[in-house]
């Protein structure tokens, strides 16, 4: 009935349509969250299938922002994620330099230790970590969370940075060293600038890990002042069960930064993460 060419064309379009539908279905919960956050209160419970608002509003975001403790939680999350990701990126860059550019006896043991820490699930370290932090008086303080998040960020950051650094030819090092540079200068003035986009991407990834973190925050923080966003949202959920607009707006505020950062740095992160986890 159709020529073979039209047939493949029809199949192509059909497959493309199917792909769009399947991916949209996967993303539906996230799309629903944003649409509900933008829905006026009056339309909230019109009908379960009325997902798309008839009119859009930002008033839900205003309401969650005026909830007691929410701005404070936002500041806490921002500060904890920013400081921990900055510190872990710098320390990881130094460690990656050591693992990528030098040969020494304990290198394999060190690699194994860092790899082991990466495989360590949060739930099996939370008890002694919290007790250790309590011992030094860091419970209910954002600083305690900053320190804990280094544990989540550093191992994966070291592997990703080492991966990118391995791609920079050693000849560049040799040229710099012959010109009289020392190792610190080599890293700071040659290698780090060469892989700057990757360093920024790894920093962004570390930020994402800390920003939405739940287990350590839940176990470490009980006071309202020290709360981060996930805890503030959970608390608001308990108090204002029925105000879906306000709560979804809160969810959107937490989900947005990692989403934007990831889309922005997607190309670097995907290759780094997949190759890292496969090598590991």
């Amino acid at each position, binding site marked *: 009935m159709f020529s073979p060419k039209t047939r493949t064309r029809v199949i192509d379009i059909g497959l493309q349509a199917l792909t769009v539908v399947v991916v949209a279905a996967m993303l539906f919960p996230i799309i629903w969250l944003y649409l509900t956050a933008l829905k006026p209160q009056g339309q909230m419970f019109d009908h379960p299938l009325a997902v798309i608002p008839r009119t859009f509003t930002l008033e839900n975001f205003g309401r969650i922002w005026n909830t007691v403790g929410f701005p404070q939680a936002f500041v806490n999350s921002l500060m904890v994620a920013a400081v921990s990701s900055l510190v872990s990126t710098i320390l990881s860059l130094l460690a990656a330099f050591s693992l990528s550019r030098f040969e020494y006896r304990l290198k394999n043991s060190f690699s194994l230790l860092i790899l082991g820490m990466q495989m360590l699930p949060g739930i099996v370290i939370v008890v002694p970590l919290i007790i250790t932090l309590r011992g030094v008086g860091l419970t209910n303080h954002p600083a305690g969370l900053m320190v*804990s998040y280094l544990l989540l960020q550093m191992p994966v950051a070291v592997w990703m940075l080492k991966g990118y650094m391995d791609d920079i030819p050693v000849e560049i090092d040799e040229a710099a060293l012959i010109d009289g540079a020392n190792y610190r200068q080599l890293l700071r003035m040659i290698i780090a600038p060469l892989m700057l986009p990757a360093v920024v991407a790894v920093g962004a990834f570390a930020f994402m890990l800390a920003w939405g973190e739940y287990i350590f925050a839940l176990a470490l923080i009980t006071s309202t002042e020290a709360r981060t966003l996930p805890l503030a949202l959970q608390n608001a959920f308990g108090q204002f069960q029925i105000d879906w607009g306000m709560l979804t707006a809160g969810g959107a505020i937490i989900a947005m930064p990692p989403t934007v950062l990831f889309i922005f740095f997607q190309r670097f992160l995907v290759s780094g993460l997949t190759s890292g986890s496969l090598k590991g």
Partner: protein
Amino acid sequence: MAWNQKISHRLSAASQRRANFAAQRRRAAYLFILPALIVLGLIGLYPLLYQVYLSFTDWYLLTSPEPIFHGLRGFERLVTDPVVWASLGRTVYWTVGTVVLELAMGMGIALLLNRRTVINGVLSALILLPWVAPSIVVALTWRWLLDSEYGTLHYILQSLDLAGRRSLLGSPATALAVLTFVSAWKGTPFMVIALLAAMKSIPHELYEAASVDGASALQKFWYIMLPLIRRTAVAMSLVLGILAFYSFDIVWAVGKGGPADSTTLIGVYLFRNFFERKEISYAATIAVSMLVLLLIFSAIYVWVFRQRDS
């Protein structure tokens, strides 16, 4: 003989310089990795060893302010605790279910995205959003979607006769299965991206050669693609399986392991002992046992890959 001495003198000076250089290199290597090691030692290794010690003690915050050594009694309690075995059973169900669903959904979506089009390029980036979403947001969003009164998904499931009046999350018979699906939903994107990368690295000539030999699309998938992405699929299944086995946050944020303990995974039981019951040493005992299981998992992982490589 003077020239001979001269040369050997020069040689030793050169090797001296080389030795100095090597020592300097070694010092630099250790100095650069030292800060990271100190931090990981203090917040990773030390707590880990401390936890092993705690697992051999009795430390119930309501009765004693300090841990008291009591040998293996914690582990005896663990193996005779019916809740541990029930939680472990649920965790195995959860882990296997999560990985099977991730493989099935991940393979399907990766195959769809494998055709090189502009739209698929955009979709491959967007597909990662569930994986990036913070777990508290994932947990609450699914609670809303499955809400028995206003939940969109609940309404659809109800009209298909797949759900009754109660939310699927509110009934002990269905909550674990539904949350297992949510866990797979969050992990699938990672599987998709890894499989997609493996699929795209297969040289096109292989398919062309097979076409010339008259292979069907199914045969090309089965005899060319599948063997070449199997390694990635196994590796990702193990990585995601380990992640699933230690799941805690979504289940806790949705309903703290309820209703009626029906979603109490082993990680949830650990946290409950620590957080709610203040039985610190028992929580440590559970954690150490889970770590031993992790070591066994990792050993299998490494072993499987050694087999493959050789």
